[in-house]
């Protein structure tokens, strides 16, 4: 796919405005998808450590769109809040499921299972079917993480 794209560069299409000749649009600079799940057996912590986790304030995560790391970048939900469970693990509480925003529920996903992608996030370690089996978030036994708290989240390149 990329090889084909590279043979027909986008700027040729821009140039076409001069020459009245159309070319195909730009697609991706990334020949392979980002946000790949960790290899079988690898812990979320270790997988996240390989993704050069970067500091980000919790308050900057609230409201971010959460995508599925596939070329179509399906929207999985939005970040609702960030909490810490009784074991100290940081969890990202996100809306999930439903149709057009209706009927969604909150689930808590370990922050190490997620990645930053500019101003959005992706769930790298779980597929949507796996997420559908996550229990609905129950705040009992968790502690909200203040917005100014800095957590470290791994990176991914665009999946498109």
């Amino acid at each position, binding site marked *: 796919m990329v090889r084909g794209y590279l043979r027909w560069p986008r700027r040729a299409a821009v*140039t076409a405005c001069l020459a009245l000749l159309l070319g195909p649009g730009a697609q991706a600079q990334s020949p392979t998808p980002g946000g790949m799940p960790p290899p079988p057996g690898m812990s979320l912590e270790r997988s996240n450590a390989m993704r050069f986790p970067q500091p980000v304030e919790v308050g900057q995560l609230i409201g971010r769109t959460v995508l599925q790391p596939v070329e179509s970048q399906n929207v999985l939900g939005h970040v609702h809040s960030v909490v810490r469970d009784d074991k100290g693990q940081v969890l990202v509480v996100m809306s999930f499921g439903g149709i057009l925003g209706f009927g969604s529920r909150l689930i808590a996903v370990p922050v190490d299972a997620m990645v930053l992608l500019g101003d959005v996030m992706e769930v790298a370690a779980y597929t949507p079917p796996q997420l559908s089996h996550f229990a609905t978030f129950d705040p009992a036994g968790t502690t909200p993480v203040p917005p100014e708290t800095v957590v470290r989240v791994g990176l991914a390149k665009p999946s498109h």
Partner: protein
Amino acid sequence: MRSPHRPKDFAHTDALEVHRPLIRSLERRGLIRGGLSLGALTLLTGCDVKRPEAVETALLAISRLNDDVQALLFDPTHLAPTYPVSMILRPPKFNAYYDVMDVKPVNGASWKLELSGLIADKRPWTLSDLTAMPQRSMVIRHICVEGWDYIGGWTGVPLRDFLERVGADLRAKYVAFKTADDYPSSIDMATALHPQTLLALQYGGDPLADPFGFPMRLRMSTKLGYKNPKWVTAIEVTNTYPGGYWENLGFPWFAGI
């Protein structure tokens, strides 16, 4: 009930075998090329559309023409919009031709910037040499050819100041870059001398993080994202077209915004 759209007689079972050679001759890319060729034919008389490489050559020629037009339109003193520090996205968005897990961090202590070409003083530079130079900060929009963008805050040495310091021939055509991740790139001298072209050392007031090009990367406000190589290890000033990683694969070279 039998559907009224269902044919009374089924297709011959050997139809697929009979037409298999024809089906094999159909290629999706062939259709695309054919579509392009239709447009090309109206303008490029004499172009043999039966040869895809001929169409490709024609398109690349037009892309080069587009580069020349962009270079003509480029105003070396016109500044791109800047933004308040509060709009800086932290951390910035990662992108490369490989996934982030394949990033190979560079050791800043042993890192050296090699110089070559039309430069009077070719002594290699260290990170401390660069940090000792006057720094400039800018908050600009990063625009990717893929269609996304973000606002980032960069601090570093204006490339113009650096080129003047090392005695580069500022009349040369190109400034080329080599990087630790084998991502060569090059820009025109006019853009190299633009006030918003930096050898960036910091992002958001902190040293560049490993995935974003530590210890030094190029950042320009006037070109698309793929023209900004990370982990720069060498700079060459030259009059010979140097190309670049994506440019050698067909991306436009000037890539102005």
